[in-house]
């Protein structure tokens, strides 16, 4: 099932176009990341599909229209947008009770949720006494009230310390294992690479590219190869049909192979020609390089 369809979405703030004719589709079971630098329109996009911002143009649809367009669909979704927003004068349980009432969820196991986000020991403390990390974790816990099948996270690790970041990512992956669909925005490649199955890269509100994280990652394989005599190696490799190009670096050669080939082919060729390799390393082009390439071009 298509969980979310976004069609030609546009939002302008004065002269600035925050979201520009955006099209996206999220399928059930995907962990879909929107990746883009700060101010690229990620939060605005999420704000629109979550009903707090009105678009100037375009449409979106949840669950193929099964639960309507507004609040009915949103009750099937757990979402955290930007900052954790709770009533500061209530404790964790009381705040989750409000969420449960809104979601019309009964028999919610608040203790289990608080345990999952590591807040069980502070469940009776008022929200205003929480540290930023605890607030963020409560917000992630709140998204799980009513056991929704779709979760939305906007910069879920923002402002957290390294331990907190690791915890939150682990929590998200734990949730993902339950077969839930996750739609998250992040400006950190590393995060999307580690967590997401699919990614859309946006800049200045424009969709630059989208697809499986793996496919964006694997487009080009770079192989570092070394031998005692680099010139002979280079001569042999330059005749190979599966190589695109070879660059001579001090002590090693950098070879780009065509799609479908790998370090295996390079090694096999070297063996056939009687060359002993002193170095062989396959490096996939990282999403980061891709991301930087794409964003600097535009």
């Amino acid at each position: 099932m298509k969980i979310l369809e976004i069609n030609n979405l546009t939002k302008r703030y004065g002269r600035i176009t925050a979201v520009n004719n955006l099209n996206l589709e999220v399928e059930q079971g995907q962990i879909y990341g929107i990746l883009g630098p700060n101010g690229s329109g990620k939060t605005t996009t999420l704000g629109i599909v979550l009903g707090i911002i009105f678009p100037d143009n375009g449409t979106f649809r949840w669950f193929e229209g099964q639960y309507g367009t507004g609040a009915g669909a949103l009750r099937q979704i757990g979402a955290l947008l930007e900052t954790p927003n709770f009533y500061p004068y209530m404790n964790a349980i009381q705040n989750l009770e409000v969420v449960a009432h809104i979601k019309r969820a009964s028999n919610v196991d608040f203790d289990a949720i608080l345990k999952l986000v590591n807040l069980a020991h502070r469940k009776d403390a008022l929200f205003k006494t929480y540290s930023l990390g605890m607030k963020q974790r409560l917000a992630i816990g709140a998204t799980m009230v009513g056991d929704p099948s779709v979760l939305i996270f906007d910069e879920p690790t923002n402002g957290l310390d390294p331990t907190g970041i690791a915890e939150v990512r682990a929590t998200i992956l734990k949730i993902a294992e339950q077969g839930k669909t996750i739609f998250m925005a992040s400006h950190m490649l590393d995060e999307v690479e580690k967590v997401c199955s699919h990614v859309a890269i946006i800049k200045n509100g424009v969709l630059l590219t989208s697809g499986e994280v793996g496919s964006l990652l694997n487009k080009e394989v770079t192989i570092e190869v070394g031998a005692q005599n680099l010139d002979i190696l280079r001569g042999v490799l330059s005749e190979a049909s599966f190589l695109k190009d070879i660059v001579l670096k001090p002590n090693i050669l950098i070879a780009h192979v065509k799609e479908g080939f790998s370090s295996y082919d390079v090694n096999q060729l070297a063996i056939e020609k009687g060359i002993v390799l002193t170095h062989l390393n396959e490096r996939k082009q990282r999403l980061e390089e891709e991301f930087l390439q794409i964003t600097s071009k535009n």
Partner: protein
Amino acid sequence: MTNIFYLLKLEWLKVKSYMPFLVLSGMYLVLLPLFMSMGKSFNLPKELGGIDAYYMFPTIWQSLAYVGNWLSYFIMGFIAVLTVTNEFSNRTLRQNIISGVSRSDFYLSKLYFLMAVAFVGTFYYALVAMLFGFFNTETIYASKMTENIDYIPRYFLMCLSFMSLGLMLGVLFRRTGIALFLYFAYIMFIERIIRFLIIGKLFGSTAALFGPMSATNDLTPFPIPKMIKGMTEGSEMRIFLTPTESILTASISMVLFFYVAYFLLKTRDL
């Protein structure tokens, strides 16, 4: 109907541990009878009917409503402003919508809540008035007791009218400080200045009486004893709107204020 209780419960979950609401409610419950009994120490000349008459049926309905008017102006308006600016400043309005409250339902939850507060406030007013009346009237006739019974719905309207202004200003300005300041300033000064300096000059002194909040105050005016009324009658100068005029004016402005709040909540980005 189930939606009303569902939304009222949502509000209840939000306010039951909200200290400003609890303090304001407590103040209302304590101060209404307290201020009323403090009036007993005033020494009113016998020619004006004496102070005791204000505590007897049927005048107690009027005098307690007058005290309640001042208290409601302060407390009901305060509650109405807070109930919505609190949601803006904690960004919980956003979160409520994201979690799955529709904008209309969010608005209705506030409206129902304010109506419930006005209802409880009015019920308490009626209760206190009855008690004062019973203990201060020597011979109680049913007819005397119920003579000013129309003050009960008027009191309810007065509470809601104050709250409609508070809610609108809260939604409009989002910030507690600004909204509260404007709420108090509008009723105390701004509307009076507009009424007397602009409306009065342009359309005459009678037209100047038709301010939304002035009409709200006129719903439960200071009880002028019959004798003084006789003295002022016949003079051209009017001080109060008639009950019908005040009910109509306050109702129209109240609906307008509530509608503006609804429109803003329904159409603005959050």
